[in-house]
């Protein structure tokens, strides 16, 4: 039987794992993640809260959670990462720097530990 457990990371917290096959929609997943990490309500409305849910797929790309049809997401998700507003800024800053050095080359994804946020990146 396929293992449908997926790891969820949030900087500053220990990793969690959940069974993605338990959910039928993004809404259910967002609600569960909010409860799991004690940030209820912050993941439902990213525009307002600034918190973003992203995931890394099997091609090692970091994507915003929610664009794909639900089933396509379930089939391609490798792990999920919860980003605070500070994390989002910091991740954008790192991407800007990496594209300056290796123009166009893929950068190995490492979302497991983000440095403390400094400065801002308007995205």
């Amino acid at each position, binding site marked *: 039987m396929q293992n449908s457990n997926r790891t969820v990371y949030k900087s500053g917290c220990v990793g969690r794992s959940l069974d993605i096959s338990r959910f039928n929609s993004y809404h259910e997943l967002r609600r569960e993640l909010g409860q799991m990490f004690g940030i209820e309500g912050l993941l439902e409305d990213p525009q307002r809260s600034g918190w*973003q849910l*992203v995931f890394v797929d099997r091609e090692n*790309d*970091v*994507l*915003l959670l929610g*664009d*794909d*049809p639900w089933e*396509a997401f379930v089939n391609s998700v490798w792990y999920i990462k919860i*980003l605070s507003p500070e994390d*989002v800024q910091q*991740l*954008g800053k790192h*991407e*800007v720097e990496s*594209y300056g050095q290796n*123009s*166009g080359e893929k950068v190995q994804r490492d979302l497991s530990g983000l440095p403390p946020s400094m400065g801002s*990146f308007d*995205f």
Partner: protein
Amino acid sequence: MYVKVSMDGAPYLRKIDLKVYKGYSDLLKALEYMFKLTVGLYSERDGCKYAPTYEDKDGDWMLVGDVPWEMFMLSCKRMRIMKGSEAKG
């Protein structure tokens, strides 16, 4: 017909369904809104900071806008909004 869209310097990629757009200007307007920037059409590329490119089914990276829209939809595998200086080479 979902394809990934990356933008140089952005913290994460997005996914879009090419089937919902009527043509290039429709697509580019949506990308401008999504990534909050100005993405130029091929004829207005000079002076624009970003250029839309796509990977076709042969694995080549091409500038968006040269081929008829329907042909683009069939051959586009993913998109990358490139910093304008890099697109010109």
